[in-house]
């Protein structure tokens, strides 16, 4: 469906079903150079199991109009406006990679709009290796190849896809190719520049899930400790590490990511009972 945020058209995938009043909403924020389609195998299940689903193409990505937001803070403000425009109630806000930083910052800035928070493939800070950042500007194809090499577990590099007949790394490359020139560089620069992770985590009070993949070389599960420790003692924090997947875990292990989100939502169902 299309929404309007700040006068610009925003495309939102809803998991194949129309959203209905009175349901909790799963909001999923994609990562750098991506669009809503990275979440297909998580969102459809929620949409048929009593949830509304809202998966936007971030501004300047996919089918959403620009301008692209150039910092995590600006993106968080934009998500806040999106949640308001959508008029949704209790919300599980989840983000992947860059999207996880956006979700974290959104939860800190708009605490009344986020009931549950899930950070997938996340670390903070999220420095981007200089050769990659440079490649996103100077040689996009090289950047895409580097991202694929680092984003998929060794078993996924040569296939054996969880989705029958699909070449996952090629899909990811085509998806990144489809974004306008400069989008990936601005996204990566936003990740690289973001320094507010610990401060944002300290402000978050809602139950939070830190979901990692054991073979993630972009945001290693070992590297999540400083961010985990930045959350306050009063924040219910869950950690989950998915085996045999890398940074592209929604594609590599779609069922495990879905179950992680679903079980987390179930464990904290009381947080979704009323509008926060």
């Amino acid at each position, binding site marked *: 469906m299309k929404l309007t945020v700040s006068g610009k058209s925003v495309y939102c*995938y809803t998991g*194949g079903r129309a959203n209905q009043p009175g349901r909790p909403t799963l909001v999923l924020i994609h990562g750098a150079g991506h*669009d809503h*389609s990275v979440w*297909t*195998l998580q969102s*459809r*299940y929620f949409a*048929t199991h009593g949830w509304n689903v809202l998966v936007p193409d971030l501004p300047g990505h*996919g*089918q959403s109009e620009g301008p692209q937001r150039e910092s995590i803070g600006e993106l968080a403000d934009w998500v806040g406006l999106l949640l308001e425009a959508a008029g949704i109630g209790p919300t599980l806000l989840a983000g992947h990679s860059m999207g996880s930083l956006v979700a974290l910052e959104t939860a800190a800035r708009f605490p009344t709009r986020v009931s549950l928070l899930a950070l997938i493939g996340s670390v903070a800070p999220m420095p981007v290796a200089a050769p990659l950042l440079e490649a996103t500007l100077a040689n996009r*194809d090289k950047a*895409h*190849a580097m991202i*694929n*090499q680092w984003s998929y577990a060794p*078993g996924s*590099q*040569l*296939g*054996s*896809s*969880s*989705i*029958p*007949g*699909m*070449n996952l*790394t*090629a*899909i990811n*490359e*085509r*998806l990144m*190719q*489809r974004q306008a020139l400069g989008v990936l560089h601005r996204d990566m620069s936003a990740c690289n520049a973001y320094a507010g992770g610990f401060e944002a985590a300290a402000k978050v009070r809602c139950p939070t899930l830190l979901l990692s993949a054991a073979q993630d070389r972009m945001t290693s599960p070992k590297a999540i400790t400083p961010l985990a420790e930045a959350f306050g003692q009063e924040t219910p924090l869950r950690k989950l590490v998915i085996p045999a997947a890398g940074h592209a875990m929604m594609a590599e292990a*779609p*069922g495990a990511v*879905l179950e992680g989100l679903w079980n987390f939502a179930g464990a904290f169902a009381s947080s979704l009972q009323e509008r926060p």
Partner: protein
Amino acid sequence: MPIHRNAGADTLALHAGQTPDPVHRSRATPIHFTTSYVFESGDHAAALFNQERAGHVYSRISNPTNAVLEERIAALDGGVGAIACASGQAALTLAITTLMGSGGHIVASRSLYGGSHNLLGYTLPRFGIETTFVPAGDADAWRAAIRPNTRLLFGESIGNPGLEVLDIPTLAQIARDARLPLMVDATLVTPILQCPIDLGANIVMHSATKYLGGHGVAIGGLLVDGGNFDWEASEGRFPTLTEPYEGFHGMDFAEESPIAAFLLRARREGLRDFGACLSPMNAFQILQGMETLGLRMERHVANARALVEHLVKHPFVESVSWPELDTHPDKALAASLLPRGCGGVFSFSLKGGRKAGSTFIEGLRLFSHLANVGDAKSLAIHPASTTHFRMSAESLLAAGITEGTVRLSTGLETATDLIEDLDRGLYAAQKACA
């Protein structure tokens, strides 16, 4: 823009799509001889049916052995995925019926495999889909043949019977200008010699029966999606991909996957409803063949070059059609688009016409006389006495062949043995026509 490969072609041909299974640790790809798959629960079943979860339901729609083959060819061809079909013809039919219905129109090369020509020229018109055939190398004719209801451009990497080399980059540009997809039948080249998606094509089909299997024991087809066509930007030309489909949960396939919408629809509708799926046994056999694809294609090309070199010098040979020869009109194109060789199929014409052709075939001992190509064993056929039996000399000329034309599919035997066999056939033909 070509997709970056995770490994070289020989490595992908051996490994892509398969890791040893975690339960039994089988190194070879297991043959999953099962029609169906046990659901974990009612909820799991519903989720699989609604594509909320990935997995297998019924082997007509997907099968783990077939999935390895699909991923392998996609990895080799630089595609985002693939679908295994019962035959090359099934793959072609699946592609067309996924893209269009009655009222659709195709612009196709005139130089097509006979089975494809039959489907496009005779069978599909019964279902309201028309085709305009154009000379493979005439870019203006391709452009001029496009109509408002055109939905696909289609040709073969190397055409039949004249071995015309398809100018894929030029046709891809024509297709892009018209916001239409270009599909290429790459059966005679395989990803070892050419990857049409890297050259700008959007969809590739293979008759896996030929070089991919190589052993001549299994019929199969493969359809590969380049993921490089923007269906949503096509101004409503492809409603099968950009509008909700009531036959599958109201799914809008391009919304679900902007990259792989074509494959989603092809699997969820065409494979499901028309049912031309590949047997997992055939998938296994084709996979076995693909493990040595790189080695075999090198030998096919080397042997073909040796035979061509011998035949062009033979006094009873009128002409040889082979894109690597100076006499072939597409020599420069072949050097550019097929730098590793033009495969193992070529044709030559004998002096002495129809009688010479049939006598030549009967004089062969090593070459098998049959209607197939791409086998490990060398094959020969004389069109004027078999596939084109009813055609007059004039009609044969219009189709690009003569009464004395022989088509060879060069196999992997020792080249000197093949040359000796050709000389045997040539001697018999020459004697009969003396």
